[in-house]
C-alpha cells in the first residue's frame, strides 16, 4: 500500500522512537531502530523489527552521526528515515544526505528547514509574507551602538537573542538602558560558545505572554491545513512542562486569525509534512506575534491527536509516501479538551536534579481517555547520557475540567519505583488555582510558586511507616523478605484475602 515506505528506520530513541515504531507497524511498515551502546536495553530497540548499534553512548558519537545512520538504513534495506524530534530532525544537511542516498526523508524539504532554521532569516521571510512578528530587527545587529539605538526606538524591556539559538539558550531580557552594554556582550559570547555564531538580534519584550502554537500538515501537492492550537505556557527554564488544547482563553476570532497566518507561514517556505508555528500571544492587547517554526514533529503532538482524531505520525508517513491529504480543512474539528504532562526522571524537591537509575517497579495509569507514551519499563535503567524525559501522560475530557481531573487522577495512579520523577510536581501544577483558571502566562512558574509546587505531595508519615516496617522486617528476618508474618492468629489469616481484594 505504501510502496515507497516499505521499511522505515527511526533515527531516534526513547518514547518518540517507540511512538514512530507504533505508527509504522499499524500501517504495515517494517521498522529498524538505531541505538547507542548505552541503549541496548532501551524500549525502542525491543519494539522495533530490527535494530542496529550506531556507536558509543555520547549522542555526538551515535544519534548525531548522520552518515552512520544512513549506512544502517542502506544495510538493512530500509527505504525511509523518520527523525523524530531533537537530534537530527532539524538538520537540513542530514535531510539532504538522506535524499541523496536514495531514501525517503519523513520530514519537510531541506530548503524549508533552512529557511526556518535561522531566526533572523525566518523573521525576514515572515515579514515578507505578511506574518506579524514581535517588533524588533529582522537582521543580526552589527554594533552595540546600533543595537542600543534600536532598543531605545522600540522601548525597554527588550530581548537580545542569538540568531542561531534554541532550547532557551542565548536569550537575555534587558530591563533598563544601563544594563544594555553587559547584556549585549554576554549574549554575544554565549551565542558564540553555544551555537558557534555570535549573530544577535533584538526584539521587544512582551509582558506575560502566552506561548501558543499552531499545528500544520502539508502534503506534497500544495495543500496545507492547520490542526488548531496548543497552549504551552507552563514552562520552566524555557522548557515546556504542561501543554493543552484548546487554549482556555483564546477568542475564536484570534484562533482563526492565528491559524490563517500559520498556514501562510508554512506556504511561504513550501512546507511539507507536520510542522508547528509558535506565537507569543498578549492577553492584555490581544495581539499575537510569530516566534519561530519547528520543522518537525513536536513532543506535545498527542494533545492535537486527541482532540482532532488525526494520528500525526501516521499522517507524516502517508504524506512522505506521496499521498494527497485525505481530509479538508472544514472536516477538522476540535472535540473536547486534551492536556499533556511531561514526566522527567528528576527530583523536584532537590532543585530538579536529574535522577537516572534503575526503575525497579512501574505501574502506568489506565482507564478511559488516558494515554501513556513511554520509553521505559520495569527493570529498565534510565541512562545518564540523554534527556531526562521518560514518558508523557495525556488525558482527554469532554471539558477542560474533566480533562484536568482525569489527569490528576491518572498521575495519582502512576507508580514509578526506584527513581525520582516529576509526577508530584505535575500533580501540584494541575491543582493550582491559577492553572485551573486558564489565564496563566509563561511567567506562571515564579520562583515562589516553583518552590511551593516542587515540594508538594509529601506523604512523609506514610513513608516513615513504610521505611520503619521495611527495616524492622529486614532486621528480624535478615536476608529474607517476609512473605507471611509469624504469630498470626487464625482471625488474621482469615482476614488476609479480604485485604488483598
Amino acid at each position, binding site marked *: 500500500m505504501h510502496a515507497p515506505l516499505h521499511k522505515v528506520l527511526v533515527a531516534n530513541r526513547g518514547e518518540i522512537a517507540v511512538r514512530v515504531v507504533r505508527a509504522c507497524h499499524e500501517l504495515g511498515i517494517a521498522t529498524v531502530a538505531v541505538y547507542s551502546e548505552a541503549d541496548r536495553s532501551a524500549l525502542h530497540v525491543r519494539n522495533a523489527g530490527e535494530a542496529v548499534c550506531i556507536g558509543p553512548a555520547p549522542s555526538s558519537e551515535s544519534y548525531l552521526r548522520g552518515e552512520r545512520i544512513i549506512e544502517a538504513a542502506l544495510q538493512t534495506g530500509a527505504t525511509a528515515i523518520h527523525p523524530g524530534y531533537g537530534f537530527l530532525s532539524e538538520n537540513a544537511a542530514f535531510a539532504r544526505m538522506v535524499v541523496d542516498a536514495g531514501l525517503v526523508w519523513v520530514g519537510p524539504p531541506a530548503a524549508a528547514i533552512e529557511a526556518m532554521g535561522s531566526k533572523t532569516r525566518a523573521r525576514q521571510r515572515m515579514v515578507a509574507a505578511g506574518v506579524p512578528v514581535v517588533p524588533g530587527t529582522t537582521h543580526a545587529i552589527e554594533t552595540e551602538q546600533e543595537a542600543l539605538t534600536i532598543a531605545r526606538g522600540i522601548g525597554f524591556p527588550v530581548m537580545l537573542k542569538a540568531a542561531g539559538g534554541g532550547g532557551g539558550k542565548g536569550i537575555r531580557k534587558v530591563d533598563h538602558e544601563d544594563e544594555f552594554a553587559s547584556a549585549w556582550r554576554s549574549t554575544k559570547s554565549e551565542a558564540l560558545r553555544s551555537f558557534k555564531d555570535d549573530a544577535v538580534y533584538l526584539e521587544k519584550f512582551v509582558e506575560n505572554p502566552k506561548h501558543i502554537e499552531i499545528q500544520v500538515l502539508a502534503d506534497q501537492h500544495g495543500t496545507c491545513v492547520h490542526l488548531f492550537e496548543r497552549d504551552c505556557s507552563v514552562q520552566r527554564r524555557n522548557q515546556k512542562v504542561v501543554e493543552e488544547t484548546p487554549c482556555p482563553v483564546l477568542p475564536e476570532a484570534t484562533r482563526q486569525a492565528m491559524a490563517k497566518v500559520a498556514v501562510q507561514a508554512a506556504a511561504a517556505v513550501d512546507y511539507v509534512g507536520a510542522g508547528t508555528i509558535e506565537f507569543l500571544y498578549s492577553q492584555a492587547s490581544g495581539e499575537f506575534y510569530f516566534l519561530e517554526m519547528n520543522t518537525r514533529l513536536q513532543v506535545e503532538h498527542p494533545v492535537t491527536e486527541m482532540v482532532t482524531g488525526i494520528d500525526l505520525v501516521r499522517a507524516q508517513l502517508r504524506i512522505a509516501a506521496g499521498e494527497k491529504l485525505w481530509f479538508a480543512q472544514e472536516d477538522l474539528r476540535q472535540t473536547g479538551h486534551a492536556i499533556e504532562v511531561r514526566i522527567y526522571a528528576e527530583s523536584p524537591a532537590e532543585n530538579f536534579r*536529574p535522577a537516572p537509575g534503575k526503575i525497579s517497579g512501574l505501574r502506568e495509569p489506565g482507564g478511559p481517555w488516558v494515554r501513556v507514551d513511554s520509553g521505559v519499563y520495569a527493570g529498565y535503567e534510565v541512562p545518564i547520557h540523554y534527556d531526562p524525559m521518560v514518558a508523557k501522560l495525556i488525558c482527554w475530557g469532554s471539558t477542560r475540567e474533566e480533562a484536568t481531573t482525569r489527569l490528576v487522577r491518572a498521575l495519582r495512579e502512576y507508580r514509578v519505583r526506584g527513581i525520582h520523577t516529576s509526577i*508530584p510536581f505535575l500533580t501540584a501544577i494541575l491543582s493550582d488555582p491559577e492553572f485551573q483558571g486558564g489565564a496563566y502566562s509563561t511567567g506562571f512558574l515564579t520562583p515562589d510558586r516553583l518552590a511551593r509546587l516542587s515540594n508538594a505531595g509529601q506523604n512523609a508519615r506514610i513513608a516513615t511507616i513504610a521505611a520503619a*516496617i521495611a527495616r524492622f522486617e529486614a532486621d528480624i528476618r535478615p536476608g529474607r523478605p517476609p*512473605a507471611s508474618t509469624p504469630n498470626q492468629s487464625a482471625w488474621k489469616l482469615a482476614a488476609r484475602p479480604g485485604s488483598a481484594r
Partner: protein
Amino acid sequence: MKYEITIGETTRLVTIERDTGDGPATHRLTWIETDTDGTERNETHLVDLLRPSPEAFHMLIDGESWEAGCVASPDGYLVDVVGLTLAVGVVDPRRKALQLGVASAGGLLSTQMPGRIVRVMVAVGDVVKKGQPLIVIEAMKMENEMKSPIDGTIGEVYVSMGNTVETGAKLVRVDA
C-alpha cells in the same frame, strides 16, 4: 525496636513492634510528632501489611489504604507514595552509638545520583566553607554542583575528571 527515620530535615524516633492483638494489624508503630506550631503529641498507628513482592508494600494504616514502594538505598530506603519518591534515612540508634567512635561525622560528601565528573574544584589541603561547590557532576545533559557539607579542610578527594560514578559513591572527605 527503635529507629531514627529521617526525611529532609525532620527526624522521627519510631518504636515498632509486631501487633499481637486480635485485629488484622501486623505492626504497631508509635512516635512523637511535632506539629508545625511546635506542639508535640503521641502518634500510634496499627498497620496491616501485605507485601505482594519484596519492594511493594500495601498497608492498611488504621484502616486507610496506602501503597508504598521501598527500595533499599545506601543509608535507608527510597520510598514512593502516590508518585512521590522520598529518600528516607533509617538509623538504628544502638548501631549509631557504635559507629560514632570510628568515623568522623558529617564531612563526607557522596553523590545521590550517578553521573560523570566534569570538574574537580578543590585539592587536598584546601580550606572550604559549608555550601561551597567542590565537584561538578554531569548527568542527563545537566551539570550539578556538589557542595561541601561542612566548614573545613579537604582531607581526601576520591574522584577525578572524567570518572563515572554510581549513586552513593564517595566524592570528597572534608575534615572539620
